[in-house]
């Protein structure tokens, strides 16, 4: 066999990874064992192979012992394969003569029995040694990276990423589902802990998005199809009709004034239903694009076709209003994609014991954000749904967080925004405020100081998760109040606290359609539904799909500073790819041995990328190397064994199988 590939000289290197591996796997024994295997010229164990001296050790051996195959038993190839391949190249050996054995993640970290773990490591090394004999020299495939970028989601994350890229001179497509960009941040009143007004810091960024020559903003639009691969994505965007022609509309908003509905009459989504709007409306004054849209469910023209169309008259010869507008499909090509689709606020109805939806004076934190907002439905005046002004307020933390019944995770921001709301409510109403918390978590710049400030403002902090919010009264002091029953765990007794207003600090959860979205883009998702980063520490904004990056709460709960930082990081990652100009692809492509192929076409339907084709002239199958992503499904399907796959040749895998099984 080996003769087929010339004289094989293998070097085997077993890494201790400090004690990470050595504590469970007897690295010395493994190295000694490997030394006795056929074709193995050098075999060593070493403390940290990924370190410079470690790599140098390998390079030196390649030179001294004319090694032409390298087996490294250490961590996961996902972590260090690149490192060791580069090391080998450094000594003039083709990178693909290197093979890694995972004896850390798959062994020392998951096993406890030293003997069994060592045995397993030896089996795996033996398999690798037999495998590399059949390795061949390969060249990496280079594909160019399209310089344009798609940013999905127009919240603060998407906005920041888009601006960063645009300012770097890259063309950016920013696609937002809602009629305006701004996301959740646009709904907030103040931001913790500095209490600077959200609108004041956000709206300038929003308008510069609109104004930026490098940014194409498509609001009220959805990504409907994604094809291709890193550097060369083909994306289809569906632009839902606003019934306003954006080229003609000047954003004067007179049409809204003129609507036949003199008074706003319909649920105003942006204000969480606390306010009203007209059928033709703009979500909020600083919305971007600064342009109204028509809600066909409430617009008379759409419902009956019999409307005076005062809006059209108001628009006059601009003729910007177009009832016949249809959905438009746009197809774009981009090289990289940044996902910034944000989050969904927890639906408080899922915790019925807090009475949201039953008792009108129970609010969610997001509703309160609007309520205290100067540009909100009550112009910042805090009045309850029953018209009263609250004298006592209870703020319940961790609603839809840290709860096996709803969401297990901590939403990270609730503690701080609850403090913020406590402060704002006190400021607006001078009410007596009770915070009910399980733990106060203020890990952030200026956070703990803010907590101190609240304490000094005389806000009550009661450590205990409220059991129930009810309206049943034991005595007159509790009549017409909402009563919170809770254990004050610091006093060690149960308390009944009557309040006028209850605020539920709802947590952060993934969008309902998060799974569909990431399937559309074809990348991973954690079990709870947040987008999965490539590595929690070392690749926090990359996904397992090259060229797609994540930023903001779609990846996990985080506050505005973290979101912006992550958005910047995602933009930088994209820039790095674009400026390199190309990506090197793993040469694990499949290929047809032409004169062995019978042209049976079994392979053709296997390929989701149409890389496999049937050549009608030669009557043989063929594979476009650029299109092939190296899954190997066609290889496994080929009935006559005439398709092979670089790096995963049948022989290599058969050797691995026999390697792990044949005891030596």
């Amino acid at each position, binding site marked *: 066999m080996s003769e087929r590939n010339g004289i094989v000289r293998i070097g085997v290197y077993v890494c201790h990874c400090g004690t990470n591996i050595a504590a469970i796997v007897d690295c010395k024994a493994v190295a000694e064992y490997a030394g006795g295997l056929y074709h193995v010229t050098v075999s060593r164990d070493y403390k940290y192979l990924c370190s410079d001296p470690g790599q140098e050790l390998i390079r030196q051996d390649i030179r001294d012992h004319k090694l032409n195959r390298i087996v490294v038993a250490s961590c996961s190839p996902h972590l260090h394969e690149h490192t060791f391949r580069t090391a080998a190249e450094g000594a003039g050996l083709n990178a693909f003569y290197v093979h890694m054995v995972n004896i850390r*993640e798959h062994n020392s970290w998951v096993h406890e029995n030293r003997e069994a773990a060592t045995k397993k490591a030896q089996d795996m090394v033996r398999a690798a040694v037999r495998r590399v004999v059949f390795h061949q020299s390969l060249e990496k495939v280079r594909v160019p990276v399209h310089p344009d970028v798609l940013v999905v989601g127009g919240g603060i994350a998407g906005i920041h990423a888009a601006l960063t890229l645009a300012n770097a001179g890259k063309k950016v497509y920013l696609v937002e589902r809602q009629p305006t960009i701004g996301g959740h941040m646009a709904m907030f009143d103040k931001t913790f802990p500095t209490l600077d007004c959200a609108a004041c810091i956000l709206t300038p960024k929003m308008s510069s998005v609109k104004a930026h020559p490098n940014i194409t903003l498509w609001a009220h639009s959805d990504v409907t199809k994604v094809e291709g691969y890193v550097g060369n994505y083909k994306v289809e965007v569906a632009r839902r009709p606003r019934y306003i022609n954006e080229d003609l509309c000047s954003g004067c908003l007179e049409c809204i004034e003129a609507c036949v509905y003199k008074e706003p009459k319909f649920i105003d989504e942006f204000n969480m239903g606390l306010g009203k709007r007209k059928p033709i409306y703009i979500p909020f004054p600083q919305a971007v694009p600064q342009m109204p849209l028509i809600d066909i469910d409430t617009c008379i023209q759409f419902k009956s076709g019999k409307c005076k169309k005062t809006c059209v008259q108001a628009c006059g010869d601009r003729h910007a209003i177009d009832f016949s507008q249809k959905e438009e499909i746009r197809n774009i090509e981009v090289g990289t994609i940044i996902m910034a689709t944000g989050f969904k606020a927890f639906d408080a109805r899922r915790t019925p014991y807090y009475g949201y939806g039953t008792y009108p004076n129970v609010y969610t934190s997001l509703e309160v954000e609007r309520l205290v907002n100067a540009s909100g439905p009550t112009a910042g005046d805090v009045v309850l749904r029953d018209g009263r002004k609250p004298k006592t307020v209870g703020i319940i933390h961790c609603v839809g967080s840290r709860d096996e019944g709803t969401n297990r995770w901590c939403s990270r921001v609730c503690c701080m925004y609850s403090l913020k709301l406590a402060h704002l409510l006190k400021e607006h109403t001078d009410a007596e405020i009770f915070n009910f918390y399980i733990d106060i978590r203020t890990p952030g710049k200026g956070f703990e100081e803010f907590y101190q400030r609240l304490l000094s403002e005389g806000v009550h902090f009661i450590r205990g998760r409220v059991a129930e919010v009810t309206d049943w009264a034991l005595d007159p002091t509790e009549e017409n109040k909402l009563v919170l029953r809770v254990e004050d765990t610091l006093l060690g007794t149960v308390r009944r606290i009557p309040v006028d207003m209850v605020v539920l600090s709802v947590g952060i959860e993934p969008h309902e359609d998060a799974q569909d979205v990431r399937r559309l883009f074809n990348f991973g998702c954690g079990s709870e539904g947040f987008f999965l980063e490539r590595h929690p520490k070392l690749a926090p904004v990359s996904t397992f799909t090259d060229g797609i990056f994540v930023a903001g709460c779609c990846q996990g709960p985080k506050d505005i500073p973290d979101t912006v930082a992550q958005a910047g990081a995602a933009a930088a990652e994209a820039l790095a790819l674009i400026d390199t100009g190309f990506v090197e692809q793993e040469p694990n492509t499949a290929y047809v041995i032409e004169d062995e192929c019978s042209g049976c076409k079994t392979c053709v339907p296997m390929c989701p990328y149409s890389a496999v084709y049937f050549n009608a002239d030669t009557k043989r199958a063929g594979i476009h190397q650029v299109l092939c992503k190296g899954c190997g499904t066609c290889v496994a399907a080929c009935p006559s064994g005439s398709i092979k796959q670089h790096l995963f040749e049948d022989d290599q895998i058969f050797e691995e199988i026999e390697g792990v099984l044949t005891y030596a």
Partner: protein
Amino acid sequence: MPENYEPKIVAFFCNWCTYLAADLAGTSRMKYAANTRVIRVMCSGRVDPQFVLEAFAKGADGVLIGGCHPGDCHYQEGNYKALRRYYLLKRTLREMGIEEERFRLEWISAAEGDRVRTVVNDMVQKLRALGPRKMNPAIEPELEEVAAS
């Protein structure tokens, strides 16, 4: 069955989901049985039935294929191809005298490190209960008595 019988499982894990899940199990220090020998393939769709047959032929007590959940395949449909082959191969193996429990296909996403633990432990436990593989009979049967007249 030998007292310290340790079934040996050849596991084909897809690069994008199950292999990563196994990595995750590692980084989260979950403990599970040391009976698997993982062979990395890019996609569960790469697993040629010959690989499974070879593994059993060479004495594996079990073969485990790990892939992405349906709809989550990094290569869109590879796991469905794997699924279709799996069912036919499973039946074939059964007729060749290899028990169902010995051949398993599991969908384990990159986030399900814990599932790797449970699946492996469960399979090991089932195989222990099953005991070592059945043997091929000797080619020459022991000669029977020469019949008397």
